[in-house]
């Protein structure tokens, strides 16, 4: 029995040593929580925002930069636009793309269609790509996200962006019909959601393309403001050109949101 306790004590001592080292001897890295699938609000996006979204996916959810980086795991994509033209003519090309956009799309979902020399799976003689299909499996980009990535790649490689922003209902890849969103609660949220601050100076945002709205209530009535949102071209403020502001807010905003926004602006004095 004595040995039972002696050996048990010794074992405990060793285990607590290892435990202590793992807990206090090394820095503890807090694991990131599992990624949440993001909902896209494509309707209100400009092409620049859409490209930026593509960049975000490229660097984040798409995990592209794990390999497409300077360490040479995968080809760099900084000239993909120019390269695509040549590759589609290459004898080794197995895909069906006709345009740069199609080529990039194909290389995202069927990476083996063209494998850049030297980057194939080992032993496959550059016929098979080690890259996963980014529309499935662990990365799981939907068509809208793919389009954003393509737009980003076209933009960043200096070629013309030919992608069109997909319609809203392309975003949720599957599942039930999109849930009717509840109306926003504060005017600040409305301003953020509809991106007013991109062009206007209002509510802590400092856009400079459109008129400054920080004291708009002083000179403008509620009716004027309402009209300016619903039909931006009706009256163009002095010193600004027409055709800049999207005419679609009337379809997008809820009546409650619109009134809240108008009341808020009327109060800015």
């Amino acid at each position, binding site marked *: 029995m004595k040995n039972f306790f002696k050996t048990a004590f010794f074992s405990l001592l060793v285990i607590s040593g290892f435990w202590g080292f793992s807990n206090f*001897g090394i820095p503890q*890295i807090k694991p990131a929580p599992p990624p949440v699938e993001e909902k896209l609000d494509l309707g209100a996006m400009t092409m620049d925002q859409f490209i930026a979204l593509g960049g975000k996916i490229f660097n984040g959810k798409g995990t592209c930069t794990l390999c497409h*980086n*300077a360490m040479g795991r995968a080809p*760099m994509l*900084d000239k993909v636009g120019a390269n695509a033209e040549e590759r589609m003519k290459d004898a080794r090309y197995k895909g069906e793309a006709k345009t740069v956009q199609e080529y990039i799309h194909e290389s995202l979902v069927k990476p083996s269609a063209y494998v850049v020399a030297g980057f194939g799976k080992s032993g496959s003689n550059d016929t098979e790509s080690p890259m996963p299909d980014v529309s499935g499996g662990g990365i799981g980009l939907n068509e809208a996200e793919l389009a954003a990535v393509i737009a980003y790649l076209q933009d*960043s490689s*200096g070629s013309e962006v030919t992608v069109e922003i997909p319609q809203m209902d392309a975003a949720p890849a599957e599942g039930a019909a999109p849930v009717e969103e509840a109306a926003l609660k504060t005017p600040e949220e409305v301003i953020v959601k509809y991106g007013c601050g991109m062009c206007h100076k209002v509510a802590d945002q400092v856009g400079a393309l459109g008129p400054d709205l920080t004291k708009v209530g002083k000179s403008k009535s509620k009716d004027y403001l309402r009209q300016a949102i619903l039909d931006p071209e009706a009256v163009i403020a002095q010193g600004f050109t027409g055709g800049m502001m999207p005419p679609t807010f009337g379809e997008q905003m809820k009546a409650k949101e619109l009134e809240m926004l108008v009341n808020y602006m009327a109060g800015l004095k």
Partner: protein
Amino acid sequence: MNMTKKRLIPRLLQMALVVVAVYFTFILVFDVLLGQLIPKSLLTMYMVFVIAGVVMVFTFTEQGAQELAGPIKALVEDPSRKMVRNVVFVIVPLLAGYYTYSSMLPSFEAPVELRTIHPAPPNKFKAYGKSFNLTTLENPYRKFEKEDPVKFKELVKEGGNVYIQNCQYCHGDRLDGKGPYASGLNPTPLNFQDVGTIAQLQESFLFWRISTGGPGLPAEAAPWISSMPVWQNFLTEDEIWKVILFLYDYTGRRPRSWANE
């Protein structure tokens, strides 16, 4: 089994001396001779393994183990050593207490941060409203080094002026990272004289680092503190390229290039 043989230095003391010697060797080699201090956290772990190794060597024979344990046993059991025993039994708990106290004492030291050693530069970056590709970017003035040495000298001199007007406050007038403001910065400004800094880098990397400054460091390198300004807001593109010429010229280093490797 030769227990009667008297050793010049008792085994226990020998062991302690070996451990202490190794400890100070580490300090001497790293902190003094090489000038790169050994981090305390690492030294602690190193010493744990060194002690384990030393104890193993000193105890793997029966005789060695007994010689080692002998003095300790005598200290606890020998009636004639009562005085020493009492002293040790008072001092050891006090030392343990002091250690616990000092390690629990709150300090003003900021918590230890983990840093990524190699912040990979981006392949492309935006400066001066356009996009630069780091892999192909070259110093437009480097070619004059061979083609037109007189003009090159002129360019270096202009770069030197830019340096003295802008950079030396932190990086020092001898480019050793010891400018007047250097002591206020943590991490300290880079020492360009050191072989581990600009000599390891391409000119395009320097251009990126200078033009985008501390805020331009990639997110993956976080936590990363750099107080270097975003120089594209203050210097022209040409001035940066000239200052790079100056950095290499003054330190006598060559920029790294892929062509030579």
